[in-house]
């Protein structure tokens, strides 16, 4: 057996590096946490704030993650343009919400108005996703893997700058929904109404999606196609139609998430999809790519981690302005999951290389 010295060194180096990375991250987290708690800089209320915020944001990531995970399950490709689908939903809802807000409709019938905005957002994003699928993905289904990936990246940028061209580079503010501002007093703790509503809405929609995927005929067809496209076709399933339906449903979720996100952060901007998109993808991988409930779990976990992370471990280590590194926490989680557990916390082995 001819193993050259360089090869052996290489393999040792890889192992050392990977272990070192793991140990580094784990120790940062543990030591930081201990130091922070000892310092006691943050009160219990503040922690709860962080956690609730994390759940709210995480549930939005979860909704977006559903699109990634379902498309990956069916087509084995990362839909890079999904973050722009999310953004388009936010924009779609924006115009309606703005009009309603200005006319006072939103204040008189807030529930109706919000539901309408969410529906419009879902429609717009589904439309965008179907266009992208038809133009940039479908013709490339049989191409080597790199090709649709690059096409997806291209679609992502194209959409971003299209929206910039249509609506301008500025940041648009969602109207302030009076009903949703302020706090509710739950168990003696003040929790922002907006966050609760967002989280609850997200959970409801995800529950609906889960029921669709697990209980209905079309859901079964989706799962069949994601197991084996060719066999599903032989069973009489209209594979193209199912693919379109998957894109549509995933997009609708993302679109709704877009409106919720915009409501929470009051901002709409052509570039807003990028970071949530990556975080949503991380959530999808965390939960096991292709695994629908896993994506939901992954989203919440990521949301909480990134929310309490800077305060919990970075602050304790004396890192100034830790919030700058908030996104870095998400990225590091992404890298760690991809490196060490690509099948995710809950997931199936959809990611192992075929020998």
């Amino acid at each position, binding site marked *: 057996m001819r193993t050259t010295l360089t090869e052996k060194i290489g393999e040792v180096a890889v192992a050392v590096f990977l272990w070192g990375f793991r140990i580094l991250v784990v120790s940062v987290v543990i030591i930081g946490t201990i130091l922070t708690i000892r310092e006691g800089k943050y009160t219990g209320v503040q922690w709860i704030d962080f956690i609730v915020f994390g759940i709210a944001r995480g549930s939005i990531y979860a909704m977006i993650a559903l699109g990634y995970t379902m498309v990956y399950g069916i087509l084995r490709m990362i839909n890079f343009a999904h973050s722009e689908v999310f953004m388009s939903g936010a924009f779609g809802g924006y115009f309606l919400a703005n009009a309603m807000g200005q006319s006072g409709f939103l204040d008189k019938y807030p529930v109706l108005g919000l539901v309408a905005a969410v529906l419009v957002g879902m429609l717009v994003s589904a439309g965008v996703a179907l266009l992208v699928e038809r133009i940039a993905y479908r013709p490339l289904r049989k191409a080597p893997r790199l090709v649709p990936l690059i096409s997806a990246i291209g679609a992502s940028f194209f959409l971003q700058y*299209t929206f910039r061209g249509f609506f301008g580079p500025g940041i648009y503010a969602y109207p302030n929904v009076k009903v949703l501002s302020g706090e509710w007093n739950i168990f003696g703790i003040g929790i922002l109404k907006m966050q609760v509503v967002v989280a609850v809405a997200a959970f409801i929609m995800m529950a609906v999606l889960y029921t669709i995927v697990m209980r209905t005929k079309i859901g079964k067809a989706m799962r069949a196609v994601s197991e084996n496209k060719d066999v599903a076709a032989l069973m009489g399933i209209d594979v193209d139609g199912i693919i379109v339906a998957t894109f549509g449903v995933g997009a609708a979720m993302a679109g709704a998430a877009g409106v919720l996100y915009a409501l929470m952060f009051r901002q709409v901007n052509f570039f807003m999809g*990028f970071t949530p998109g990556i975080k949503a993808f991380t959530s999808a991988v965390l939960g096991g790519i292709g695994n629908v409930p896993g994506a939901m779990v992954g989203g919440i976990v990521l949301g909480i981690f990134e929310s309490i992370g800077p305060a919990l471990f970075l602050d304790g280590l004396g890192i100034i302005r830790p919030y700058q590194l908030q996104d870095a926490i998400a990225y590091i989680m992404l890298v760690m999951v991809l*490196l060490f557990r690509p099948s995710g916390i809950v997931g199936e082995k959809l990611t192992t290389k075929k020998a």
Partner: protein
Amino acid sequence: MNKQLRLTFGKAVRTGLIGGIVALFLCLVGIVEIFGKRSLIEGLISLGHVFLFLSLLATGFVTASRKSDQAPLGRLWLSLAGTISGAVAGIVLALFMLLGSVINIRAMFIHASPDLYKILSFGRGMAGVWLLLLVGAALGALGALIRVLPSRIQKPLMQGFIGILLVGLFAGLVRPLLVAIPGLPEALGRYLFGQTGLTQGGALITFILIAGIVAFWSARGKTVQARVAKWPRSGQLALRWVFFGLAGVLALTLPLFSGPFIAQVIVLISLNILMGLGLNITLGFAGLLDLGFVAFFAMGAYTVGLLTSYGEYGLAHISFWAVVPIAILVAFMVGAFLGLPVLGMRGDYLAIATLGFGEIVRLLAGSDFLGKWLGGPQGVIGIQKPCLGILGPYVGLGIPRVCHGLELGGPKEIYYLAIICAILVAFVASRLRDSRLGRAWMAIREDEDVAEALGVNLIQTKLLAYMLGASFAGLSGAIFGTLVGSIFASSMQLMVSINVVCLIIVGGMGSIPGVVVGALVLIGLPEAFREFSEYRFLFYGAALIVMMLVKPGGLWPSSIVQRELHLDVKNDTGPNNAPTSAD
């Protein structure tokens, strides 16, 4: 009406609708309006019009295209079909205008502006709607005609139009070149060119000239080519060298008679060529989609920054020339560092993981956490310029060192450095490609399982691709750092990586001339035309999609390069020797 006709007319309407929507898209996105400010033919057609016309022409062209298995249709019918599709597209636009006159579309789409309506209506207000329909139909017919005309007529016509487009676009370059030719009166320049494009007379002359040349070439060109092919091999090679030599002379003397702006553009192009060649190895040869490529660029830049700066973050004060090899080495090692963990991953996961790395590097570099060493959001400033001579000693904080010799201070001087480096790197890349390692890379890209079965150590080989690609990027970053004089983490964006990826895809993966072409097109165009840079990423995105759909090999694919460059491989048809057997 027979079936073929019905089908064709149906297709015409569909194509017209799509064309109309595309044209509408161009309007709403603002391309028509912004490019409308720049005229192609003075007083007649602006670039905005060009976009519109192209989409209308295209509908006619596409409608008149028949697939080879379809029955042929008379030219007249096809032209009619083209007219219909053009008219339909025109109707779409007209409807838009009518809507716009009633509703304030601008409340939502910011580019539905009065300027846009002026362009669409050819300056005639609502009456222009009819003109629009007419123009649509006419262009549709023209598009169809171009498609169905025999190649003898079609080619010169098309090339003539393309010629007007190109010369008009590049008027800024062509005009000074023309004027620089001794013997030509300056008045000629003024006659041919307007402020930004051609004059009407100039357009006509350009069209006739180019159409004429093309017509001549297609008629007589074959004989000329045949005669050249009969020349001895050395003659043909000599011709190539002359061509390259001319290009070389042009490249070397360009900064002397153009402004510093053009020099800067070329420096940026060269830096992108450097990075492109690096990513060409990682992605083009080995097939590893690295979206975090900018991290290596950052390594090179920060190394130069930290080791040569006379500002507060300068760790040492070494001359640029000494730091460059260090920067390359640092990038090389970081390549190993970032590459090792991701090498086992599959394509899309590799892409996202590397993207994550790139972002982590950016966030860390710009954070206050590491601000003490890396300058935080304010970055590292005060980077010493390279000095061809003796560099004076480090005097104090914030004071640049004196250069006793030629200081490469501005783009005009760095231009030469950049070009020389680009040529050097291209040379290294081509040597690598034709080596055992290069072939191993290409085998991995084609089919990595089979490559492994032939004895290729996947991890080592991929890692080398990563590291070598990284070192090129490091060099590019080093030059960039000294060009700008300061480094900010905010310039180490994902966009830079995407830029380079686009370059390679458009130019041709794995092809070295392709990288040059890609850089020229994707960097040169937006820099030269401010209007393009507004929509830069829109074009990039569309370019990526279109390239993948139509020409995944790129504009100058590596397979063409192979054929051209390997004509001299000897293929001896000697006696039927059995190859050496296993021991």
